[in-house]
């Protein structure tokens, strides 16, 4: 249990997917202009990330890895290695899952759909989702770890986008040089937030 907790803390604070790996920047920059949509996008990322990372884990371990197909075809599949298909199968899973989640939410919870709906299609091309799956593959997590890692990367992203939205709301009436307005100042502020998150890296887990 402790192991999972420290993995969660690590992926939320110490190795925040946005602030230290730069993943999901595009939607972060576009959406953090307002607070409401930031909450919606944050929730959607937590949900989809927590779902897609373990599913991609299953695909990797039962379909793609060398010898992974033995359970289906028998010993003759021992040497079959489909890892080169990893990118295309991960992204297909993510796109399909996003579509499925969107349809399910639309059917069962119209209010949630009204809040999340517009953000779900955006998520298919949010690099933090594919990034989490690729990190999961690179770091050889097991199934439980990949659930924890996926969901807490999402939480890290949600925290970053929410704090940015709050700051951008605050600086609305600040006197910023023309060329720095919008993207420029957002980048510099993100740098400062990320500097603050660096202080977590001293934590021993």
């Amino acid at each position, binding site marked *: 249990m402790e192991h999972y907790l420290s993995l969660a803390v690590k992926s939320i604070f110490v190795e925040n997917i946005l*602030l*230290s*790996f*730069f*993943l*999901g*920047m*595009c939607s972060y*920059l*576009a959406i953090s202009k307002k607070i409401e949509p930031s909450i919606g996008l944050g929730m959607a990322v937590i949900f989809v990330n927590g779902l897609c990372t373990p599913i991609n884990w299953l695909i990797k371990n039962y379909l793609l890895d060398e010898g992974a197909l033995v359970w289906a075809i028998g010993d003759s599949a021992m040497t079959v290695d489909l890892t*080169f*298909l*990893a*990118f*295309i199968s991960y*992204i*297909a899973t993510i*796109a399909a899952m996003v579509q499925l989640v969107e349809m399910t939410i639309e059917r069962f919870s119209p209010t949630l759909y009204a809040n999340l709906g517009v953000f779900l*299609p955006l998520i*298919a*091309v*949010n*690099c933090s*989702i*594919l*990034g989490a799956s*690729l*990190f999961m593959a*690179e770091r050889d997590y097991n199934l439980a770890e990949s659930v924890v890692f996926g969901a807490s990367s999402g939480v890290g992203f949600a925290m970053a986008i929410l704090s940015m939205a709050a700051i951008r709301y605050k600086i609305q009436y600040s006197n910023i*040089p*023309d*060329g*720095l*307005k*919008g*993207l*420029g*100042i*957002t*980048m*510099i502020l*993100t*740098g*400062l937030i*990320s*500097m603050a998150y*660096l202080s977590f890296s001293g934590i021993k887990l």
Partner: protein
Amino acid sequence: MSDIFKDPIINENPITKQTLGVCSALAVTVLVEKAIVMAIALTLVISFSNVIISLMRNVIPHRIRIIVQLTVIASLVILVDMSLKAFAYEMSKELSVFVGLIITNCIVMGRADAFAMQNNAKDSFLDGMGNGIGYGSILVIVAIFRELLGSGSILGFALMPDSYVANGLMLLAPGAFIILGLIIWVQRTYTKYVEE
């Protein structure tokens, strides 16, 4: 013709103006060499994905266009990744997941959807090249600053005097964010673009 190619490099730069593809712009800029490899990889992927999508633009059903685009892009990225693994294994290890992340790089998707779906193959190719080079130039500029200030060298050659104390912050994430912010400032002051 030249406008399609030239615009994305300076005035309509994908990173500083269109706000596309910022994620990988930052992650691979610790060393100039990494940035150059990444820029070449992305330029190849975006040019050819634009051509392929533009050739198929009349047969792709509108509703499933995103998934068709993703499949084309992902296949091209797999090719790039496999070639990197074959010819530059060390570099592919260092770039790790970021080669794969070209798939979700919004520049590629964005240009495929916004340009290649409406234009012929030749223009799409030029647009892809232009955007790739525009992206690459920002990448290399950020990398030059980060490597020079963070390690005191460029492409591995030490340039700073021995008395220079390397600024470790430049190698970490905040350095990348702040340098890119300043570059955006310079570029927008030059093109006189103001975001509302």
